[in-house]
């Protein structure tokens, strides 16, 4: 009877395998219906993220790739459309006083948090001050907010110590998130967000750090923005996992920052939309020559710009997916961006050598650049080769991955290579994050009267004056060669055939309500 048992066992194994057949894909994935929103919304939107979100508490919120995790649960006081036009959110109207130091917002009435707590101006004021005083990486967005107070139940007044031209856009992002007051100080506030938003976190099905499950908020005030019955956000930490999830039909939309992944995802039939939100290049921080005296001379910094073969770097490092540039301003910032500046420093080693000679460095000089384990060896080799060709000797020092940002911000290195920095949405952002003496990415605190004067016009000038100042500032920084940008890499967001997504001009991840079922 042994053969009978063997046949039976074999049949069971085959049966089990066949039983598994067909369950490789995601049975729960549904396309949803373009015309069905709110209570009629169906299906599950499955999204992939390349980052693990930090705290889910509004007062500690980060943005960029963290945005969808917050937008599922929270509303913001204001909103921005994909072209950055400010729109109503929880605030329906807003106005400044004459000198732009008092912002008054009229709030939507009858809105409740998903825990039943009413939303009003007092709660909004608390959220504002908690973000300003919290530990979000973006808390400086509200540094000019001196007081936030409820004039009445539906009127919020923000009094500023100085005008902030970007404040409205900040209130449409992390700084404007509104959390239930019951979460303030709660022990589990970091992992149990409660907002007025379109979805509610399903804590039982969520694995923090890996998979976040949201179900529709039945009492949402704007059901037209609820395109799906539920949303699942999964973190894919390796390009391999991202590609496997796409090829296995496990996601409807996923962020694909890596150039090679974009090509594989497109080959799998996904529609990849790209945007240029960062710039990559040499960050010439030591403009006062404290560590590397040669960098104090603008001709030396310009020589470095001429020594770089940008098209080659795009091809070799960015796999062809990037736009060569010499400016750090955002291409979508119409008021400050100047297309002509993308080609200000063509590849010209002879001119670079001449500039070095004119500056008294005909024999070249040495510069030390940090090298991190995750950095591209091709990038480091090309930098060494191209700068070496004009007489600048590059010496790399190994830098632990975890230390890079802190050491760079402390001014430990005169030059940094290959650290992508955000191209900020407006000239005011650029001035505050990269140019003014207090800016994080001006680690040697270089003070320049022209920069200060133009930043002043950005802050307090009329719209026309600010626009001119933005353009002038961009041109000045390029001429002074504060940086040696190489190119703007194309970051991607890919959607399957059942889904559409409208890219957000100022964010790596499309805003959640702009990801919808395809008709």
């Amino acid at each position, binding site marked *: 009877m042994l053969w009978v048992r063997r046949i039976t066992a074999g049949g069971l194994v085959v049966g089990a395998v066949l039983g598994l057949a067909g369950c*490789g894909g995601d049975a729960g994935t549904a396309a949803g219906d373009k015309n069905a929103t709110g209570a009629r919304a169906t299906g599950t939107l499955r999204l992939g993220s390349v980052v693990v979100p930090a705290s889910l508490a509004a007062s500690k919120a980060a943005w960029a790739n963290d945005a969808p995790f917050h937008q599922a649960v929270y509303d913001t006081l204001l909103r921005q459309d994909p072209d950055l036009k400010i729109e109503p959110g929880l605030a329906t109207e807003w106005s400044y006083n004459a000198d732009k130091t008092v912002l008054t917002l009229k709030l939507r009435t009858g809105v409740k948090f998903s825990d039943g707590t009413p939303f009003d101006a007092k709660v909004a004021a608390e959220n504002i001050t908690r973000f300003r005083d919290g530990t979000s990486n973006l808390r400086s967005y509200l540094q000019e907010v001196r007081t936030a107070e409820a004039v009445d139940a539906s009127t919020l007044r923000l009094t500023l110590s100085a005008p902030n031209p970007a404040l409205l856009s900040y209130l449409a992002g992390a700084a404007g998130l509104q959390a239930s007051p019951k979460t303030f100080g709660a022990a589990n506030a970091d992992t149990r967000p409660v907002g007025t938003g379109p979805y509610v976190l399903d804590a039982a099905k969520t694995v923090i750090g890996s998979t976040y499950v949201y179900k529709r908020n039945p009492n949402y005030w704007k059901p037209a923005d609820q395109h799906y019955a539920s949303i699942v956000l999964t973190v894919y*930490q390796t390009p*391999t*996992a991202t590609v496997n999830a796409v090829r296995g039909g496990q996601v409807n939309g996923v962020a694909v920052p890596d150039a090679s992944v974009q090509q594989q995802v497109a080959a799998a039939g996904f529609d990849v939309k790209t945007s240029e939100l960062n710039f990559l290049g040499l960050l010439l921080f030591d403009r006062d020559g404290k560590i590397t005296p040669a960098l104090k001379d603008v001709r030396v910094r310009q020589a470095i710009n001429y020594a770089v073969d940008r098209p080659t770097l795009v091809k070799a490092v960015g796999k062809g997916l990037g736009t060569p540039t010499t400016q750090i301003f955002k291409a979508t910032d119409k008021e400050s961006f100047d297309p002509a500046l993308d080609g200000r420093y063509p590849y010209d080693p002879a001119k670079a050598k001449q500039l070095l000679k004119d500056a008294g460095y005909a024999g070249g000089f040495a510069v030390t650049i940090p090298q991190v384990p995750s950095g591209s060896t091709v990038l480091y080799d090309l930098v060494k080769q191209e700068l070496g060709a004009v007489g600048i000797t590059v010496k790399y020092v190994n830098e632990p991955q975890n230390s890079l940002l802190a050491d760079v911000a402390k001014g430990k290195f005169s030059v940094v290579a290959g650290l992508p920095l955000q191209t900020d949405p407006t000239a005011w952002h650029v001035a505050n994050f990269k140019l003014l003496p207090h800016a994080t990415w001006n680690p040697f605190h270089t003070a320049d009267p022209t920069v200060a004067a133009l930043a002043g016009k950005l802050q307090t000038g009329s719209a026309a004056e600010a626009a001119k100042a933005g353009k002038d500032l961009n041109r000045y920084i390029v001429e002074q060669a504060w940086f040696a940008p190489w190119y703007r890499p194309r970051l991607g967001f890919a959607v399957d055939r059942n889904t559409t997504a409208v890219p957000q001009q100022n964010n790596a991840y499309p805003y959640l309500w702009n990801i919808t079922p395809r008709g």
Partner: protein
Amino acid sequence: MYRFIARRLGSGVVLIAALATLTFFLLYLGAGDRIARQLLGEDADDAAVRAKEHELGLDRPIWTQFGHWASGAVHGDLGTSWFNGQDVRTAILSRLSVTVTLVIGSTLLTVVLATVLGVVAATRGGWVDRVVQFLGVLGHAVPNFLISLGLVTLFAISLHWFRPTGYVRFADSPQLWLSSITLPVLALTINGVSGVVQQVRGSVLDELGRDYVRTLRSRGLPESRVVYRHVLRNAAGPALSFLGVQVVGLLGGAVIIEQVFAIPGLGQVAVTATGQGDIPLVMGLVVVSAVLVVLVNLLVDLVQGWLNPKVRLG
């Protein structure tokens, strides 16, 4: 027997305490003021970094921080994640079952396959032996992630038999749970079997040459009984010791496998926490991993003692 267990547990506790203390000071002394910056990223200004340092208690003396952590750990409180604020014990427990499922599944498969293949190779010899040895070397030489990619491409993407990424809890759907762990378990098992099968083959060959085997055969016992009842029991000792090492190795292998398959286990969170500088979570993972290693070694010792009473005397 009880004294044996108590002694082993005692030395395990000392080991875990020493390891935790050493790890704490290595991590915190190297942390300096860069951790808050690393946690917040390039968008944060200096004020945000200082506020974060204060929130995390990094502005306190290191002995105070150690005392705080150690007193919490003794009471089962491993602190909260610096990155996402999650309770470390909850973070680890929610993922422990996933990794343990992978490791147990892989270990069971490894034991069965390595035993069958090892015995067949040793008793049949010839081309069967050569094929098993070749496959053993091949399986050991090919990295985990390449095996994973091959399995995913063939069974998940081409044939659609299994899920290419993700994990489904057994309680949610037993069928999808099986579909989600099959390929990761197979990927881990191939490496495991490759090592253990050589050990089983070698031990069985050694035992087959001993006098008692000749005696058993001369008394007319069937070959299958000689091999499976007597030889295998005696050959199990060395193979079991190797298996113990392999199980600990599987925990390391799970780090890669969980990344490739996007499985929310300890390996995945270990990579994330280390990259982010989330020291409380790293400390918790070190402690839990040490506990697992101590327990696995204790279990191996107990099974060894059951198989061979002379071990207990030692």
